[in-house]
């Protein structure tokens, strides 16, 4: 598949500003005074649980719904009052949205036809776009003759064919199987970079968001909890919600003392250094937990320390494995290289160590739920 050079930066990328956007559905607050700015050519992924307002944000930007308050500014122009048809935005939907009665080529050319582009030009452009997504040979097929992944690629080509100012992706990969999803995710990123279009990507899949975006916005109850590059969202979550939602976290009881938190005898730095002293729950990533030694002698100091426990489950994940260790009063998950984890079996006695990465703490939280943030 080759990228068509003609498509590259077909238009100058624009800045998108959402200012003070609010949206209510009866008593339910879907969006609560949201401010968000997408830099020109940037891809921002909005991530969050169901009902957090991410899709509402995208629909307000697309003009498919009206905001109760606030403004949508694209390229310095206030488009809040414009209908969806006049907003000049390409959109790919979660559900398959190709027009079933049209061929792939006709689907891609549909927007150009509405813009009264000549038949020859729209055919040329449609084939360019199909070439961009690697489906030019399927141009004369109907959507029902394509796989789900191919349909979404055609939908992407159709959205880009009109040279929109902004590209909106509403969970476009969620209906696909895992392998196709990963392939198409990379494809979308490649094309987005190639075209250089400002893009808003909505997903509930944290892996997808972290892999594809320039910045990730984690949303909760209609508000942005954190907007930052993926590595920062993961390694320096702004709130305990972000820490728990993005990736897995062990919830371990600890005590803040002098700007540090002491967790099971380990001194760990705090993300928020001004946390007052006292009992807290520390959120520790599984990859920060490592194996200090296995098979400690019972009765020795190592065999009865606060980080000594029994392996109760090993989950093979490929290059790494997740090992769950019962420490007696709580359970801890450690993400270890598979080569290291394969030496363990359920029932093995191990001693763990915690890497001194900065951790978030939530005061007064219940550490009973030992592991927070299920992976999507």
């Amino acid at each position: 598949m080759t990228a068509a050079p003609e498509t590259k930066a077909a238009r100058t990328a624009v800045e998108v500003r959402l200012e003070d956007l609010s949206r209510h559905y009866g008593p339910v607050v879907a969006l609560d005074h949201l401010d968000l700015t997408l830099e020109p050519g940037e891809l921002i992924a909005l991530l969050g649980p169901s009902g957090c307002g991410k899709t509402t944000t995208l629909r307000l930007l697309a003009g498919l719904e009206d905001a109760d308050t606030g403004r949508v500014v694209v390229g310095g122009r206030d488009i809040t009052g414009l209908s969806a048809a006049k907003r000049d935005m390409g959109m790919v939907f979660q559900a398959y949205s190709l027009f079933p009665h049209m061929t792939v080529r006709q689907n891609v050319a549909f927007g150009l036809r509405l813009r009264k582009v000549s038949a020859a030009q729209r055919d040329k452009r449609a084939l360019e776009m199909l070439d961009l997504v690697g489906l030019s040979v399927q141009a004369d097929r109907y959507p029902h003759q394509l796989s789900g992944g191919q349909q979404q690629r055609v939908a992407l080509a159709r959205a880009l064919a009109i040279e929109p100012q902004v590209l909106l992706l509403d969970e476009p990969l969620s209906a696909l199987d895992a392998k196709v999803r990963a392939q198409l995710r990379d494809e979308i990123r490649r094309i987005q970079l190639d075209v250089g279009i400002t893009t808003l990507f909505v997903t509930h899949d944290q892996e997808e968001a972290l892999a594809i975006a320039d910045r990730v916005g984690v949303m909760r109850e209609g508000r942005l909890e954190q907007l930052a590059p993926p590595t920062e969202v993961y390694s320096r979550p702004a709130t305990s919600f972000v820490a728990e939602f993005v990736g897995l976290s062990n919830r371990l009881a600890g005590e803040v003392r002098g700007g540090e938190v002491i967790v099971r005898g380990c001194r760990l730095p705090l993300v928020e250094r001004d946390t007052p002293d006292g009992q807290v729950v520390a959120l520790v990533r599984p990859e920060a937990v490592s194996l200090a030694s296995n098979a400690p002698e019972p009765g020795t100091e190592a065999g009865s320390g606060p980080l000594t426990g029994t392996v109760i489950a090993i989950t093979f994940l490929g290059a790494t494995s997740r090992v769950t260790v019962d420490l007696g009063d709580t359970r801890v998950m450690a993400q270890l290289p598979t080569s290291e984890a394969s030496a363990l079996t359920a029932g093995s006695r191990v001693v763990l160590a915690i890497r001194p990465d900065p951790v978030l703490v939530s005061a007064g939280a219940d550490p009973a739920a030992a592991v927070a943030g299920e992976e999507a």
Partner: protein
Amino acid sequence: MAAVTSIGETPASTAASRPRGMHAGRKRRLNAFRYVVFTIFGLFFLLPLLAMVRFSLEGAKLGTWSVTAWKQIASYQGEGVPPLLSSIEITLELAVITSVVTLVLLVPTMIWVRLRVQWLSRTVEFLSLLPLTIPAIVLVVGLGPIYNQIQHYSLSALMLFWVYVILALPYAYRALAAGLSAIDVPTLSEAARSLGASWFTVMVRVIVPNMRPAVLNALLLTWSLVLGEFTIAYLLLYNNLPAELYAISRNTPNAGVIFSTSTAALLFAFVLLLILSYAGRTRRGRG
């Protein structure tokens, strides 16, 4: 060891084959029952039709064969009634007008309700299905004064289309609703809107082409209804084909043309059904 294996396998294989055998026997009995039911109902429907065809081919003497009645369709005129051909024309025109008006009324309304005012869908469904619950005679009584007014302006039987649209609503609604529910109307329309389509374009170029089979079904049901409607036309003193056939039968009870015309109308509806079914199947060939 072999014997042990064999003994061990026997009950299992018997157990496995028993349900299959039972299943096959049950299936045979079910098939036989189906054929019997199909034959009985086939005869029930076909015998009157065959009798009608036979009567339409009855010669001047009882028991002889003739195609005179079929030849007369174009020229027959009973006493005190207009030519048969004119009532056929009027009925066909009524079918066209009624189906067009019904579709023009229902299709945009249903799409709009689905897209923009979902909360109205129950009300629209209720109103559309309401005519099913109202007997024709009640409709006639209610519509009588209105038709008295209409007849001041036009005596044409084509004016029956007003009431026929009401009668066709429930059938057309059900057919269209089935078609609409088979496609993801909100997503398709939002996709089209995001590409720059107006609401009119969304309906005409995106939604309607995808509900072509449903539109054809609604068309067929409307035509069938209009071709066979007698009560209202007769009571409101209009002459459509069924009313004309009834008038002929009263004046000349032995006229084979009644049967030839009825058979022709039936064949026409059947051919129409075939055409519409074919058109519905081949829709993917165009776009």
